[in-house]
């Protein structure tokens, strides 16, 4: 394939193939930012891939203003179906936010379509729940041992979210690849409406569809494994020693594209010596997902 | 011999007085027919007159009656009659003021049954006492006096508990608290409320207005159909606000707002009627003539034979209505 080169970094003429998802958002507040983040980290833990976690989730941003004026963060959750999203939302808020010291939980997404938040959790209060409606907004107050857990009745649902945006970072060393991926993930995480669901925003176990084992629907992306380069038809150039992927879920195609654009720019700016030699993207030949993010379109 | 009627304070014939009353009412923009301390015939005739002249009906004791009624129609209640109380009540709680007259002793219950009579005095503490009492009965752990605990226990263990109040002397919120407590008690036992009726045959007049107009007091007909509005058709308020120009008053004495408008007074013979433009002296229902009245002792309408055949309010009201040229 003809290569594009920017600042010495080779850019594949490829595209990230992404899928429609359902998504919702929450604002979690607490007495301190530490405790708001603590609740958010708990509820977005084990939420890397819908393959086994049910939902992909992450912290979108810290909030400048929150409904109760306390420090807070916005969390986004993505799933393949509304029902699964509702179930995960209820379980995760119930187990990780309701339980977290001093927390409160509010809608983090507008929209006419709604998911139950407090409406699903209120029964925990065993009849002592207090409904409070002011204007268009409706909250539940649940007595708990450190005071009250305040939880908005519902939050918005979007059906135009996108999951599976990605960048493949191919570097000459393990250290340089990781450092570049960290820098890219850090920059990308600041894009509003997009999250990077994997640990630290980075995934090392990129996968392909299918497996030699019948039970496995996905397996290791052997063409990108540096330790298999002699044994298989490798996609790796000779100068590549390590590959890391950054996966992006966004509330809209634009959010995913913007995150990828920021990631690309970060990697390119570091140049091939400090950073990675080549940037690619994962796809399935364009047959599975309707969103195609071509890397060449995302270059500045 | 005393005059049968007065015109501007001077003795006049009854016919002249009726003609004058009809003229006043016929020319009125917003006539009041108030007081209404009269029997059922009088009430029905007053309603007919009010329809004919587009007038407003109010009763001198309506405020208390409406307090009871508002509890019934806004919250609901479980009540009983004086008959059941006298025959079966084994625990009577008298709430607030104005209940002292209720005969709680005779007739006596069967010897096997004892009747306890308890009291919650009126005053500023009453609403709080009632709230605490109900809370205690609901099993709340609140600090309360031994007397309240005793009342709670008596009501809880009674076979036929009755709580008696007089709306004329009791705040509406207190009545609602009492009725809520009675409702609570009926989950496990039996307990009833007994609202004591107001003076001036209020309960009877309220009933008659109900079947005649489909509404309770206070009612107005100025727009061609019955309208029910307890605030707008409050006679004293209308008088103070200068909204009525003529009043026909039926009662023992003229109201204190009589000077505010032209008064047509239907009063017991010999009552001072200073300030009334037209006064017609009538008999006392059930005393000076036969009458159907609400009987506090039974809680129902009853027929009372009078000692004579004095002029009734109904006869005067019907004559005025006829003088207006409206078929009744």
């Amino acid at each position: 394939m003809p290569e594009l080169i920017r600042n010495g970094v080779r850019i594949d003429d490829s595209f990230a193939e992404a899928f429609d998802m359902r998504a919702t958002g929450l604002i979690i507040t607490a007495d301190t930012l530490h405790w708001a983040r603590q609740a958010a980290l708990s509820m977005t833990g084990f939420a890397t891939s819908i393959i086994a976690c049910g939902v992909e989730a992450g912290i979108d941003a810290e909030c400048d203003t929150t409904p109760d004026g306390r420090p807070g963060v916005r969390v986004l959750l993505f799933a393949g179906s509304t029902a699964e999203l509702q179930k995960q939302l209820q379980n995760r808020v119930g187990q990780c936010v309701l339980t977290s010291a001093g927390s409160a939980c509010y809608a983090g997404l507008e929209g006419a379509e709604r998911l139950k938040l407090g409406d699903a959790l209120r029964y925990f209060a065993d009849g002592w729940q207090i409904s409070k409606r002011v204007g268009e907004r409706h909250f539940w107050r649940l007595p708990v041992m450190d005071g009250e857990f305040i939880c908005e009745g519902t939050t918005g649902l979007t059906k135009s979210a996108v999951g599976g945006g990605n960048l493949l970072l191919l570097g000459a060393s393990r250290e340089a690849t990781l450092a570049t991926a960290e820098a890219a993930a850090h920059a990308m995480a600041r894009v509003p409406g997009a999250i990077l669901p994997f640990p630290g925003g980075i995934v090392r176990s990129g996968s392909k569809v299918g497996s030699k084992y019948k039970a496995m629907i996905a397996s290791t992306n052997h063409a990108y494994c540096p330790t298999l380069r002699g044994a298989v038809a490798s996609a790796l150039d000779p100068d590549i020693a390590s590959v890391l992927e950054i996966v992006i879920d966004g509330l809209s195609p634009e959010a995913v594209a913007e995150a990828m654009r920021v990631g690309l720019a970060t990697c390119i700016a570091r140049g091939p010596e400090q950073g990675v030699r080549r940037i690619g993207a994962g796809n399935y030949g364009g047959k599975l997902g309707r969103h195609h993010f071509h890397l060449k379109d995302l270059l500045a | 011999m005393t005059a049968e009627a007065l015109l501007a304070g001077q003795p006049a014939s009854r016919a002249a007085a009726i003609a004058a009353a009809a003229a006043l009412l016929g020319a009125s923009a917003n006539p009041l027919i108030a007081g209404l301390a009269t029997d059922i015939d009088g009430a029905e005739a007053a309603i007919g007159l009010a329809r004919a002249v587009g007038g407003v009906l109010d009763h001198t004791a309506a405020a208390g009656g409406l307090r009871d009624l508002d509890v019934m129609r806004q919250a609901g209640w479980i009540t009983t009659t004086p008959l059941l109380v006298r025959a079966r009540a084994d625990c009577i709680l008298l709430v607030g003021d104005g209940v002292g007259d209720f005969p709680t002793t005779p007739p006596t219950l069967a010897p096997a049954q004892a009747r306890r009579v308890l009291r919650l005095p009126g005053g500023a503490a009453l609403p709080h006492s009632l709230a605490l009492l109900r809370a205690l009965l609901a099993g709340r752990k609140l600090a309360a006096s031994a007397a309240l605990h005793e009342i709670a226990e008596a009501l809880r263990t009674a076979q036929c508990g009755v709580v008696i109040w007089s709306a004329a002397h009791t705040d509406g919120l207190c009545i609602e608290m009492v009725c809520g407590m009675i409702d609570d008690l009926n989950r496990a036992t039996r307990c009833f409320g007994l609202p004591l009726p107001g003076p001036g045959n209020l309960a009877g007049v309220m009933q008659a207005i109900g079947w005649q107009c489909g509404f309770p007091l206070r009612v107005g007909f100025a727009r061609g159909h019955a309208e029910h509005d307890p605030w707008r058709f409050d006679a004293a308020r209308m008088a103070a606000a200068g909204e009525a120009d003529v009043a026909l008053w039926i009662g023992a004495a003229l109201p204190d707002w009589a000077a505010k408008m032209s008064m047509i007074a239907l009063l017991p013979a010999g009552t001072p009627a200073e300030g009334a433009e037209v006064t017609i002296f009538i008999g006392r229902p059930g005393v000076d003539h036969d009458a159907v009245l609400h009987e506090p002792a039974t809680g129902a309408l009853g027929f009372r034979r009078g000692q004579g055949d004095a002029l009734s309010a109904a006869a005067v009201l019907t004559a005025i209505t006829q003088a207006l040229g409206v078929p009744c």
Partner: protein
Amino acid sequence: MSALCLTLREAPAQRLDLSMLLPERLAALSPAEIERLPVQTTRRAMRLGDVFRLRPGDAKEVVIEGGSARFDCVGACMSGGVLRVIGAVGQRAGCEMLGGHLLIEGDAGPFAAAGLRDGVVEIAGDAGDYLGGTLPGERTGMAGGSVRVRGSAGARAGDRLRRGLIIVEGDAGADPGSRMLAGTLMICGSASGLAGYLMRRGTLVIGQFAKPGETFQPCGLDPVFPRLLRRLIAPYSADAAAMLDAPLSRFMGDLAGLGKGEMLIAQS
């Protein structure tokens, strides 16, 4: 196009039923038809044109210039648009309103916003008894929307309030929040009598109140809710928002009944 305007000719000699002066209703009528609308409540016939001078305009906004405590049912059952009264009104202003914006630039009589379902009622002066309360015979009071009174309210404000927000920036008369079913009633000034008596649910916030009855028990307050409420009501009333900045005591009641209501009293 400017608002449809009605200017009071002289103080009316009788109470008037102005329930027909609704933006959506007047929009469908010609000026002549509007002037012919009957407004009398007594035997003396009276048409709108007898009481007001009409200046035609876009009836999405109706302005009544000049008020009277005899103007009854202004904005009753209104469902949209703006209705502004420059002056006082009588009883039942905005009662059973379904939507729209009713502005009273003067005092209101009893039963203002009683049975309100939705929409906004603002009263610049004082309100009478049963503000946002229950109409005679009705089971429930106000069930939605918002009410702001810049002055004081009479007795039984928020009686049987079921949903929605009532803010009284001045004082309340006797027994505010009686029989509240839910909703939020805020009194920035003082209250008297049996506040919250028979309250089932809901939030009653009072600036100054000596002490609730024994069937209201101090139950502790989580500071988060006042902070949330403060921000939610700030668009309606700065005074009410400021009240929530003060330390608050929280009581639950009325424990004579369901007892799931709360009374927040600002500590002075």
